[in-house]
């Protein structure tokens, strides 16, 4: 099976007034269909930049990157992925349902199809009945779920998430992580997930990509031995703790050489 995302020798250098900044240096990674890949590392390690490269929101300065066998920009034009940002970014002048309709309107879905899909994704993220509410009437966690629903509403088989739960408290976060796994199991999407949190990365991912800064690079790729079915209790298991330990070691190793 061919990779959904394939990066070979990827480089990205920003030119700033203080000289060049190596946001990504020689990044090699294959993401297979149906993978849940987490990117973890300290700030400045390029994890968000890499995700933005996949989304064609940044332009790599070297190496090759393909998404669904196309260039990232072609993939973007083909609406190959849904992107979830750290902030929900819902339009305050649209209800939740109309916020979810936004990509559907832009992509030219018929009115009936829009209604149909909004209902389905609202169910999927457990927000049925909230379609008529305005964003300010919802809690932060609910808003973020609505923004995930918005990314799921159209037929993209890749879901890119940039610290989507970073601004939420631990309890809400646990709950959303559990829901996200259920959603992933139901939809079979390929997910790229940027996070700061080791437990979150280990709990969610089939593969964990550990990155380190200056220059931004991959220091370790960990294949998770955990089964796909993961109750929250799995976080106390020996396998989970071992993986978390290895991630922590990887992060420390990345830091030791600066």
């Amino acid at each position, binding site marked *: 099976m061919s990779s959904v995302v394939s990066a070979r020798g990827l480089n990205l250098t920003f030119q700033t007034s203080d000289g060049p900044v190596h946001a990504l240096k020689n990044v090699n990674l294959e993401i297979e269909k149906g993978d849940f890949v987490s990117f973890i590392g300290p700030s400045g390690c390029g994890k968000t930049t890499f995700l933005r490269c996949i*989304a*064609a*929101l940044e332009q790599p300065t070297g190496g090759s990157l393909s998404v669904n066998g196309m260039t990232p920009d072609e993939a*973007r*034009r083909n*609406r190959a*992925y*849904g*992107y979830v*940002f750290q*902030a929900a*970014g819902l*339009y*305050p*002048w*649209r*209800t939740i349902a109309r916020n979810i309709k*936004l*990509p559907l*309107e*832009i*992509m030219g879905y018929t009115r009936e199809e829009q209604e149909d899909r909004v209902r389905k994704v609202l169910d999927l993220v457990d927000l049925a009945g909230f379609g008529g509410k*305005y964003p300010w009437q919802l809690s932060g966690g609910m808003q973020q779920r609505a923004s995930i629903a918005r990314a799921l509403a159209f037929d993209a088989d890749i879901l890119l998430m940039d610290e989507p739960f970073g601004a939420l408290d631990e309890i809400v976060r646990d709950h959303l992580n559990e829901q996200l796994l259920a959603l992933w199991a139901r939809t079979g999407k390929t997910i790229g997930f940027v996070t700061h949190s080791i437990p979150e990365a280990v709990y969610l991912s089939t593969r964990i990509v550990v990155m380190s800064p200056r220059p931004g690079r991959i220091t370790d790729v960990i294949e998770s031995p955990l089964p796909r079915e993961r109750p929250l209790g799995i976080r106390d298991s020996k396998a989970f703790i071992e993986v978390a330990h290895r991630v922590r070691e990887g992060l420390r190793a990345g830091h030791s050489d600066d």
Partner: protein
Amino acid sequence: MRQVLAVLAVVAAIVGLWYLACIPMNMQGVLVEAERAGAQVSPPEAAARREMGGVSLALRNGFAIPATWAQERPRLPAPHQVAVELWETTIDKKITSKRSLVYHGWVTLSATLLGFAIGTGLGVLLAVGIVHSRVMDMSVMPWAIVSQTIPIIALAPMIIVVLYSVGVQGIIPKAVISAYLSFFSVVVGMVKGLRSPDAMQLDLLRTYNASKGQTFWKLRLPASMPYLFASLKIGIAASLVGAIVGELPTGAVAGLGARLLAGSYYGQTVQIWSALFGAAILAACLVGLLGLIEKMVLKRMGMA
């Protein structure tokens, strides 16, 4: 309740100050009239009185104080004189009368509204161009700023003369001046508003592969609404000033500006002040009306 009291207290203070100011302002004239009527005034010599300030005259001629609030052509009319004149020229006069302030107000208002519509339309169009084109941003914006540094009082006669020479007169020249004053606040506010969506919002639409038009209609325009209304409120007040200024150099026969001008020709201070208040009341109503529309629109949009 306390807010109402505070507002009333401020109004009372202003009116009180106004009555006080009338005493020294009008004392000279009152004493001249009193002397003619045979009253004893101090000092009796007109030349000596001219040398003295209004306050000291008032202190020496306390009996004349009530008369300072009742002159026919005072330097500074008292509040009740202006109020009476306002009442007589709005409520009592027939609207069709040339002396009705409602008639003159309508003449100015129609030019204001036309100018405001032109100015707002032009302002929005320029803002859309500026936001979407770097060339326009660099070429139009400086001129828009420069345009507002020229005193309108200098420019208005030229606009009227130039338009007259090509056969345009009546409401149009006034509306052009009024549009000239109002478009700028709309440009500035709309540019700010259309640029208000942050990078993340624009990135999101990029991930949908949205066109520029879709980005405009679905994101930039709705996001700019609060900014637009703030600009419109400034713009409509400026429009009214523009229409009044546009009435001055033509020696216009109708309009609030014409009332101001005629009042100053004939020393009719009460008429000047009532026209000024008429303009202020009109401006307040227009801004208030825009505020109501703003509330309704933003509420419908779910943003208020």
